[in-house]
C-alpha cells in the first residue's frame, strides 16, 4: 500500500486491478427484507412525482416571472435566488430519480422530466444514464466508478468552488461541446455502448445549441438576463445540490462491497428533502434502487436496524465528513468510521486492502 494518489481513470491500473480481484460487478450486501414488504415499497405510482413536478414547474415559472418583471432592481434578487435553486439544484435529484425510471409509474413522464433536468444540470441524458448505471454497479470502486466526487487526496479548494458552480459548470459544458463534436472519449466508451453514440451526439448538440442561443441573445440584447434564466442558474443556484450531494459518499470508504460503509444517510429539513427528492436516504437508495424516492422514508424505517445510525442533521454530517476529508489530505486511506446497531449483520467489506476499515460496533 503506497498511501499516495490513486488513479481514478476508468482506463488505468486501478480499474484493471478492481476487475482482476473481483471488485468490479460484484455482489453487494443487502439487508434482508421480506419479498411482500419489498414489493409494497417498490410499487410505482404517478401521484407524488406528478404533484412535486407540477409544484416545481409552477415555482420555476413564478420565480422567473418575478425576476424578469423586477429586473434592474434589487427586488429581483430573491426571485432569482429561488429560481436558481429550483433550476440549478433541484435538477440533480429530478435527473437522478427519473433516470432510474422510478419517480413516475408512467414512463414518458420519467423520460420528459429526465431530459429537462439533464439539460438544467448540464449532463448528457444518454451518457449519464450509462454513467449512473456504472455508479450503481461499482459504487466508489476506484477505476470503475465514473461518478466519484471526492478523489484522494482530496482537492478541497475545488470542492469549495463547486458551491458556486466553478469549475464544475465549465467542465460539464466542455464535455457537452466535446461530445457534440466527437462523441464519447475513451473513458466514456468504457461504459457507453457503441450503439448509443448517435444519441450521445444528438443530445450534446441540442443542449449546446440552446445554451449558445441564450448566450447569443444576451450579446444581442446586451443583457445577462437570458443567462440568468438559462444556464446561469447552474452556477448561482447549484449550492444546494453540491451541499447535499457531497454528503452522499464524502469521506467514506472506497473499494468496499457494502453500501453501509460507502454511503451516508442524513436526516434533513423538509425543504431540502423536497429539493433533493429524499436522496438523503442514500444508503437505502443504493441498497434498493428499485424503491421510488417517495417510499424511501418507509424503507428507512424497515431496515434502519441493520444500518449505521443516520446523521441527525446536515451540519452533523458535514462535521463528520470534513474531519475525514481533512485527514485524507495526509492519510488518503482513512475513511470516516461507521458503526452498526446491535444485532445488525456485520459489514461486508470484501477484497479490501487499502482503506482502514472500522470494526462493526
Amino acid at each position, binding site marked *: 500500500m503506497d498511501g499516495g494518489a490513486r488513479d481514478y481513470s476508468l482506463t488505468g491500473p486501478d480499474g484493471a486491478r478492481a476487475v482482476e480481484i473481483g471488485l468490479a460487478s460484484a455482489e453487494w450486501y443487502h439487508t434482508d427484507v421480506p419479498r411482500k414488504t419489498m414489493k409494497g415499497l417498490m410499487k410505482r405510482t404517478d401521484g407524488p412525482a406528478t404533484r412535486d413536478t407540477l409544484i416545481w414547474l409552477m415555482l420555476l415559472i413564478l420565480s422567473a416571472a418575478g425576476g424578469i418583471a423586477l429586473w434592474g432592481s434589487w427586488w429581483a434578487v430573491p426571485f432569482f435566488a429561488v429560481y436558481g435553486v429550483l433550476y440549478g439544484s433541484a435538477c440533480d435529484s429530478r435527473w437522478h430519480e427519473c433516470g432510474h425510471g422510478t419517480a413516475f409509474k408512467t414512463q414518458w413522464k420519467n423520460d420528459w422530466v429526465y431530459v429537462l433536468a439533464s439539460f438544467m444540470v448540464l449532463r448528457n441524458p444518454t451518457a449519464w444514464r450509462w454513467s449512473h448505471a456504472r455508479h450503481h454497479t461499482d459504487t466508489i470502486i476506484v477505476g470503475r466508478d465514473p461518478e466519484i466526487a471526492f478523489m484522494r487526496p482530496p482537492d478541497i479548494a475545488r470542492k469549495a468552488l463547486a458551491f458556486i458552480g466553478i469549475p464544475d459548470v465549465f467542465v460539464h459544458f466542455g464535455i457537452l461541446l466535446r461530445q457534440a463534436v466527437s462523441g464519447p472519449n475513451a473513458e466514456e466508451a468504457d461504459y457507453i455502448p457503441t450503439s448509443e453514440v448517435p444519441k450521445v451526439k444528438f443530445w450534446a448538440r441540442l443542449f449546446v445549441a440552446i445554451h449558445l442561443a441564450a448566450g447569443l441573445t444576451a450579446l444581442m440584447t446586451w443583457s445577462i438576463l437570458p443567462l440568468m434564466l438559462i444556464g446561469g442558474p447552474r452556477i448561482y443556484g447549484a449550492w444546494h445540490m453540491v451541499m447535499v450531494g457531497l454528503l452522499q459518499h464524502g469521506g467514506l470508504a472506497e473499494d468496499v462491497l457494502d453500501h453501509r460503509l460507502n454511503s451516508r444517510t442524513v436526516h434533513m429539513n423538509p425543504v431540502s428533502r423536497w429539493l433533493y427528492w429524499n436522496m438523503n436516504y442514500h444508503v437505502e437508495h443504493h441498497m434498493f434502487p*428499485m424503491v421510488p424516492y417517495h417510499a424511501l422514508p418507509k424503507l428507512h424505517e424497515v431496515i434502519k436496524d441493520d444500518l449505521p445510525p443516520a446523521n441527525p442533521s446536515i451540519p452533523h454530517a458535514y462535521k463528520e465528513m470534513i474531519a475525514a476529508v481533512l485527514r485524507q489530505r495526509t492519510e488518503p486511506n482513512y475513511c470516516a468510521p461507521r458503526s452498526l446497531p446491535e444485532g445488525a449483520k456485520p459489514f461486508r467489506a470484501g477484497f479490501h486492502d487499502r482503506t482502514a476499515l472500522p470494526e462493526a460496533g
Partner: protein
Amino acid sequence: MSDWIDVCAADEVEEEDVIRFDHGGRTFAVYRDEDGAAFCTDGLCTHEQVHLAEGLVLEDEIECPKHNGRFNYKTGAALRTPACVALATYPARIEGGRIQVQI
C-alpha cells in the same frame, strides 16, 4: 427440448410476481402474469448478471433490481437501458396446480 420440469405449486407465485428457480447449474426466473399464466426466462439480467427474481413485475415487464433495466418477460425483449440484450425465454405452463417449465 427437454421434458417438463416441475418448479413449484402455482399458488407459490403470486399473480404479477416472479420467483427464482435454479436447475442444472443455471438460474431462471419464473413469472405469473395478471391472468395467472406462467412464463419463464433466464434468471439473470443480460446487463450485469443480477437476479431478476429480486426485481419488480410491471404488467408484462420485469425490472432489474440493480439498474432498472426492463424486459418483456413474455418475449424476452429488452425494453429499457441499460438492458440492451434480450432474455432467453422458455415454455412454461400450469398443470395440475403446478408450474412446469421446459429448459
